[in-house]
């Protein structure tokens, strides 16, 4: 086979190579070492230690669906564990229609829920719609957005919400998104009132989120599965993201090899043409 043909390999060949290569780390984990990025370290520091006092109330927003569980959920799991262990209370809400599924998964992945009391230590407010308007409204009057929790309990009957009215009663926001809700919380909460805000996003959003972390809008950022794996290392409880890192290593390496092969073919074709 001439090198020129390397530029035109059938796509199905790549699909099979990737499929088979991804099997290897699942059958035989490699375990490459994972170093911590500064943005992830800042996120972890912001939800642990002196940065969180007992009794603080945080909002956790699920802006991602089932399809992004692999990227966002490990980091959300670690942050929830960290906040619970610091004695913080959490209002869980969601701007993605998969919110209930994600809430159920969080119950499975965070064993600390077993020691917490619903309505006292955490509450599941449920799904909210309305784009940036509802985020703004949440800042000015939480009860108007959630007159009752997801299970139909009236707002006034939930003990931990008795003294919660607006942004001034909220100590921090964790927004995990595949879309724009991190930006909406930045505009309507962090920018307007200085609320502590962190973003847990998919890898694709890293290029948008990292400048905001550098500018101080987000106190920390977790980027994709890698961010989740770093957080799992920091809390000392390895999970789904750490397992996925081997697959990410294999797939990224194969991608680079494919790009090199494609370019060898192009260069050879060009040289052949010139000759």
């Amino acid at each position, binding site marked *: 086979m001439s090198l020129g043909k390397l530029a035109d390999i059938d796509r199905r060949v790549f699909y099979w190579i*990737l499929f088979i290569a991804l099997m290897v780390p699942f059958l035989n984990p490699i375990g*490459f070492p994972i170093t911590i990025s500064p943005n992830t370290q800042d996120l972890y520091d912001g939800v642990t230690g002196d940065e969180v006092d007992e009794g603080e109330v945080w909002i956790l927003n699920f802006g991602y669906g089932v399809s992004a569980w692999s990227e966002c959920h490990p980091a959300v799991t670690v942050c929830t564990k960290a906040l619970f262990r610091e004695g913080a209370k959490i209002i869980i809400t969601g701007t993605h229609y998969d919110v209930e599924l994600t809430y159920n998964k969080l119950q499975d992945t965070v064993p600390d829920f077993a020691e917490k009391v619903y309505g006292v230590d955490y509450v599941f407010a449920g799904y909210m719609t309305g784009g940036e308007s509802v985020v703004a409204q949440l800042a000015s009057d939480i009860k108007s957005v959630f007159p009752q929790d997801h*299970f139909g309990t009236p707002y006034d009957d939930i003990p931990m919400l008795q003294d919660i009215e607006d942004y001034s009663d909220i100590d921090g926001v964790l927004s995990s998104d595949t879309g724009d809700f991190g930006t909406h919380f930045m505009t309507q909460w962090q920018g307007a009132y200085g609320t502590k805000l962190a973003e847990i996003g998919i890898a694709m959003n890293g290029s948008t989120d990292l400048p905001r972390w550098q500018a101080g809008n987000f106190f920390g950022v977790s980027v994709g599965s890698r961010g989740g794996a770093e957080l799992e290392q920091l809390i000392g409880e390895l999970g789904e993201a750490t397992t996925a890192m081997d697959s990410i290593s294999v*797939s990224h390496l194969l991608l680079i090899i494919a790009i090199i092969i494609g370019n060898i073919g192009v260069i050879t074709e060009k040289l052949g043409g010139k000759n």
Partner: protein
Amino acid sequence: MSNVFKQEVVYAVTGIVTVLMLLEYFFFENTQLWAETIRTWAVIIFNISLFLGAIRLTMSHSLRIQKQGRDWQFSGVLMAIFVVMLLTGIIGYVSTGVQTSNGIYNWLFNYVYTPLGATLYPITGFYIFSAAYRAFRARNIDATLMLIAGCLVMLKNAPVGEAIWIGFKDLGNWVQFTGQVPGMRTLAIVGALGLIAFGFRALLGKERGFYAGGGE
């Protein structure tokens, strides 16, 4: 008369609401009741639009099934699932107040929707793999620079990069934080300035693209 309602009233309402919300955001430290009311209206209108979307979806696919147009069978599957989810959700809500209390609704969500959703996104990895091979070609200096930067960031994100050579992390970080962040900041600022200009044009009634009919 109808033209007045279609255009002039819409301009006036848009302008008034814009001014009120700008005033509240920039000049009042605490939120104002009238602004909260407007925001609540916005949320209600947004929810109504979801309802209208569901009606439009039903109409569109019903029509396709009726006419047996192209791929009408898919519309049939969509409508069947739509009706099943709607009915089981309503039954669950009426009986216990929580729509997910219905067994069929829960089963479809947990054992059909969840695996399909979880599979859909990773499948794109296969397409990206094939597309990168075909599209990432060093045909000129710009494409070469982008290709090298992309590879460095990939090697920085994947732990294997550091295992091959520890310097990939620093190079990837340099590309991401020193190379890319200024570009994203520029985009963000330019986009924000464009949005302000768009807002002023809308306020003055010059930006008519989002009104009925569109165009200036």
